[in-house]
């Protein structure tokens, strides 16, 4: 469970994230959408404890990421915007290092590393040096490191970026398969991705939540693209509209 409440992040006078609140339940995949520079990465960095919020709180399974940081961080698997690879390490050595760092028990490390290598389709690449991998494989190693300690919460910043269509398909299947009783937040630019694998969508624009809605509650015949464009078109509004309002307006627009 991820509970984000009234998150605000200011860099000097520039406010990147303004009063963002949303919630992802256990077993849910939450798609985090927004134009470039909307504050997605900043929000994810705060959720994972990489940087503090100016105000507001984040709870991971009820643990505050700031006050109960170590325990909360233990539960998170995080794939940052750029896969955090040590370019001179071999894939397997790297994953073993991350497993140890995230507190996987000594006896379970072999199994855990082998498992994620297999899950991410990296078994043949285990002995390769990270720096020599293609972008797609680096992304997979990034995903593998996020999974290696079998975390209940996954935060994935654009997990399918840089992959070819077949790999995108594979990774989506993989993420869908991971859901189970995990909580997953993923950010993306690819709208169909959200409708395909997510249970819930949160659209942010200019640092504010423009829409928070269950995928199943989006009326049939309305594409996510329409919802997205409509949501971010309300730029400058002080109060973000509720999902119902956005959808109603859209409905009105259609009938008019």
């Amino acid at each position, binding site marked *: 469970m991820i509970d984000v409440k009234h998150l605000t992040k200011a860099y000097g006078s520039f406010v990147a994230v303004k009063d963002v609140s949303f919630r992802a339940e256990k077993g849910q995949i939450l798609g985090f959408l927004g134009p470039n520079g909307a504050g997605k990465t900043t929000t994810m960095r705060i959720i*994972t404890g990489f940087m503090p919020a100016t105000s507001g709180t984040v709870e991971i399974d009820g643990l505050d990421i700031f006050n109960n940081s170590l*325990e909360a*961080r233990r539960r998170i698997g995080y794939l940052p915007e750029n*896969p955090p690879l040590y370019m001179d390490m071999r894939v397997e050595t790297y994953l073993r290092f991350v497993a140890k760092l995230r507190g996987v028990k000594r006896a379970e490390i072999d199994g855990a590393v082998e498992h994620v290598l297999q899950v991410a389709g990296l078994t043949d690449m285990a002995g390769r040096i990270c720096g020599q991998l293609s972008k797609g494989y680096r992304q997979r190693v990034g995903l593998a490191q996020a999974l290696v300690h079998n975390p209940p919460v996954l935060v994935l910043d654009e997990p399918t970026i840089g992959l070819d269509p077949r790999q995108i398909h594979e990774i989506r299947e993989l993420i869908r398969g991971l859901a189970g009783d995990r909580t997953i937040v993923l950010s993306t630019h690819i709208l169909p991705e959200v409708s395909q694998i997510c249970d819930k969508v949160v659209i942010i624009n200019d640092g504010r939540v423009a829409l928070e809605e269950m995928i199943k509650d989006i009326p049939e015949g309305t594409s996510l693209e329409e919802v997205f464009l409509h949501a971010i078109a309300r730029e400058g509004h002080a109060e973000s509209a509720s999902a119902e309002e956005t959808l109603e307006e859209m409905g009105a627009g259609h009938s008019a």
Partner: protein
Amino acid sequence: MRNTITIAGKELAGYFVQPVAYVVLTVFILLGGWFFFAMLRQFDEMVQLVQMMGQPDTLRQMNLNTRVIDPLLHDLSVVLVIVMPALTMRVFAEEKRSGTYELLLTAPVRTGEIVAGKFLAAAAFTLVMVALAWIFPLILIVFGNPEVGVMFAGYLGLFLLALSFVAVGLFTSSLTQNQIIAAISSFGILILLFVISWPAEAGGGVVWALLKYLSLPEHFSTMTRGVIDTSDVVFFLSVVATALFLTQRSVESARWR
């Protein structure tokens, strides 16, 4: 503790796949070899000169420790001032640049453990460097009869000095994501700590005494002369502790900025 060892292990393995570390090691040993050669030549000439002049008393007073090892250690300490910043500049700066900093800081690991792990690895590499420089005393032991205890004290001094360089280097590396900036600022601080006592040479008073106390060569020289004084050891260890504390605060600051 386990996390510290995990990070130290990864870092240490990193040194041995990085060309920078090998370059640092090679430059250090090669220059050391050249200084050693020069010192021996001078020593040799001096001995011949004194012999020719027929002064057996002076000849008896001349020894390898003061004429060769002591100046050699001082030369090596200057080489360290130049090469150590190159060794430590990447430690944090590169992680910040490549994005692996996010991995480290979002892992369930305390910042103190990260800093300790990185310091231990750099310290281990430094130990290898200083140990390899024992080749020079070994040559003297084989071909002459220097005092081993004095040389040991001097090398301990060199190691402690290098450790304080490492700690300062880690600190400057933690401040930036630019390795050059990290190296130059560490270089600047080390040079300053080397010359800080210069204005104090003539004067007296508390301020001058303090400057003198802060001077690295001041404490190092005592050890190269063969004296292991607790106060000097404590001085070096406090430089290390202070720099590591600042590093920890600097890394931790990412969490409250």
